């Protein structure tokens, strides 16, 4: 509230971003790659937090992403409406080696268009491209870990597949997905949480498209839906956490 003019940069805008997509397409892995630049092969990454935050710097602005992972609640259609509420961005993920996962992604996009903010920015990400690229084993991010532990059912086809074999694993042609994304007005990327390819791009491209002015205006305003996640104090809003709840008395400004 106080420092108005000076802090153009440190006044980062909070953006709630949600992940969606079929189980095992790599949503949690994408988050982990983006937030801590890690990858765990053949293993469900443990997020174990309410949400993760990550700053994203553009030339003229700083965004603070508040990233919500599904916590596995997509598996039995048990994602709650609360999950979508006030999300300003969504990354809908499919697996390029699984055709059905793109269909699932399309239905998530529909769901978002029904449930979420009308001006939400949606990106479609075709993940696991490393599996369909001619032997990119040079990246060597995870060679050692990936050996142990027998695969379970959800795991992906063996990643050691060489050149031509690799391309044959692809079940979703890039063109097809890209055409769909264009038609539906989504940003589009092919990514690999394993190698890191395309991951940062998703988040920076989304950042460029987020209507920051709009968000700032609506947060300052009457706290209508579409304002940032937890209300600072617009319209009599209250922050429950003791530490954050300073200046408790009166002030009905």
């Amino acid at each position: 509230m106080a420092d108005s003019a000076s802090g153009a940069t440190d006044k980062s805008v909070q953006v709630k971003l949600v992940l969606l997509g079929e189980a095992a397409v790599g949503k949690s892995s994408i988050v982990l790659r983006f937030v801590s630049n890690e990858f765990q092969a053949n293993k469900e990454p443990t997020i174990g937090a309410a949400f993760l935050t990550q700053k994203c710097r553009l030339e003229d602005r700083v965004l603070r992403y508040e990233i919500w992972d599904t916590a596995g609640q997509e598996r039995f259609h048990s994602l709650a409406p609360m999950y979508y509420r006030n999300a300003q961005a969504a990354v809908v993920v499919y697996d390029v080696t699984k055709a059905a996962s793109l269909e699932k992604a399309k239905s998530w996009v529909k769901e978002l268009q029904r449930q979420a903010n009308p001006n939400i920015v949606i990106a479609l990400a075709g993940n696991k491209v490393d599996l369909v690229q001619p032997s990119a084993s040079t990246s060597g991010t995870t060679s050692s870990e990936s050996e142990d532990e027998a695969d379970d059912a959800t795991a992906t086809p063996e990643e050691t597949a060489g050149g031509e074999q690799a391309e044959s694993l692809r079940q979703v042609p890039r063109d097809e997905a890209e055409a769909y994304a264009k038609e539906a007005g989504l940003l589009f990327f092919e990514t690999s949480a394993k190698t890191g390819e395309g991951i940062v791009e998703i988040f920076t491209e989304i950042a460029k498209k987020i209507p920051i002015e709009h968000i700032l205006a609506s947060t300052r305003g009457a706290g209508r839906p579409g304002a940032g996640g937890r209300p600072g104090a617009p319209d009599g809003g209250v922050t429950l956490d003791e530490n954050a709840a300073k200046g408790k008395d009166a002030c009905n400004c």
Partner: protein
Amino acid sequence: MASHYDVIVIGTGLTESITAAALSKAGFTVAHIDENLYYGGDEASLDLDDLDQWAKKRSAASDKPLSSPYLQAQAEKFVSISAVASPPPHSRQYSVSLLPSLIPSTGPFIASLIASGVSRYGGYKLLERVAIYHSAGLVKNVPGSKEDVFKSKDLSLVEKRRLMRFLLFAAGDFAGSKELQGHEDAPFIDFLRTTFSLSMDVATAITYALAFCSAASDPTLPALTRIHHYLRSSGRYGNSPFLVGHYGGAGEIVQGFCRVSAVVGGVCILARNILSIKQSPPPEGHPQPTYVVELEGFDEPLTSRLIISAPDYTPFLSNGTSQDNTHSSPPPFSSRRVARGVIVIDHPIYFPFLAPPSSDSDPIVGASVSTESMITPVDTAVLVFPPSFLPDGSSTTAAHAFITGAGSMSAPVGIVNISLPLDGAGSSPPDAKAILTPYVNATMALTKRPSSGDVVSDPIFTLFYIQNQLLPSNSENEVTPPLPDLETCFTTPPISPTLSECADSAAMNAEKLFWKAVNALKGHPTHTPGQGEEIPEGQDLVEIESFWPPLETIVDDEGDESW
């Protein structure tokens, strides 16, 4: 996915969801199941289409004896459901709470919200106003704090002094006081009149609008205890002792608890009918049986060492669980019927008020209607109808109309939840709509801007029904196994139907269930690794010390950290 769990929690009501979150956080593996498409059970918040479905399913279930036992139980619980006109468009902009609730700023519920981290997920708003219905288009303000009493220009000095004396008494340590002794079970309103010589007006306001009593016969001690709690709650976040949760309150908060459970590994399964719950004999070397739960559409059953179930799912338990226990015990809880109405409005409500209650002899002559209240509509407020205040209303019980508006994100303009406990337990279900119509009309009269040419508007959507609500018992041992001698199967006890008390009672129930479960599970590690999911090393050996473990703290200074 693992199919064996420490605990299967059935039902996603407030109590079950808090319990599931706490057990998951304590390191137990939890599967959390609900037959509904939504979280929240009887405390859900629904958009208008889902509310419509909710009503239709429950009114139709009685015609279809083959529907699930859960739905049959629901159809017995929710009766006299009024036919719903089709909901207005943009159904999703509305969150209708099936159990409206006020959250006291201190107490077990808010403590759980903060300690679990669920408070980070949603928004809250202070309750703005509590008022008493006065007459068509007018309300009386309720002096809720000592400050209000001091400021009041409309109470006589004597009345002020008496009221202050009572408020000091209620805020203080009254247990064992001479004023209270022998009156603990006496009707609260009589206690106020005789012990504190308060006028009928003031005593009425205290009874129904401060203590949220529902009838003149409500006993003194619980009412006094509530007021004590609320007086001590005000000031933590602002003037009012109460908070209102965004997007329909309890039903939204439930989703937060379910997410907390999922984030630490709990598995949530919605919209699957339960086919059976059976008990298999204790495995070799285990003193306790295993439960086997078959779900529609699941090839393999889920199994667990412990079951915690909402009461409406217990038909499964008593039919299928035990081999030898066919003996059914009498229901441990009494019940009460509550008429409930949901009214969606597209014109805001104003509280043009008269002077606060003044003494009996002091007629309200020339009391002026506040000008501020003429232009500012209320957003979150409670309107109280004490018994006999409405000519066509109940003469024995009080109705509470809970108003939530755009500021609490529940609707573009507003939703009013009216609840009226009914007397007696007649066999034929009363007509919810007929009973509540006078209250609806009285509420809608307040949509007319004071002294303007506006006309009173009509609701854009209404739903009425009677809920047969179980009441919490006073006995300590509320968490009873549905079957004798089964210490690994619990039904969740009922929560208080009182607007200001239900959230707290759910949190208290959850904590009791939590410790019951911890006790039942202690010392018998489930997870021999290799069976089911991988668990962090040594998890089974961790000593559980508190209902909620410490939260990860928020490091919010330099960019790139997670929390």
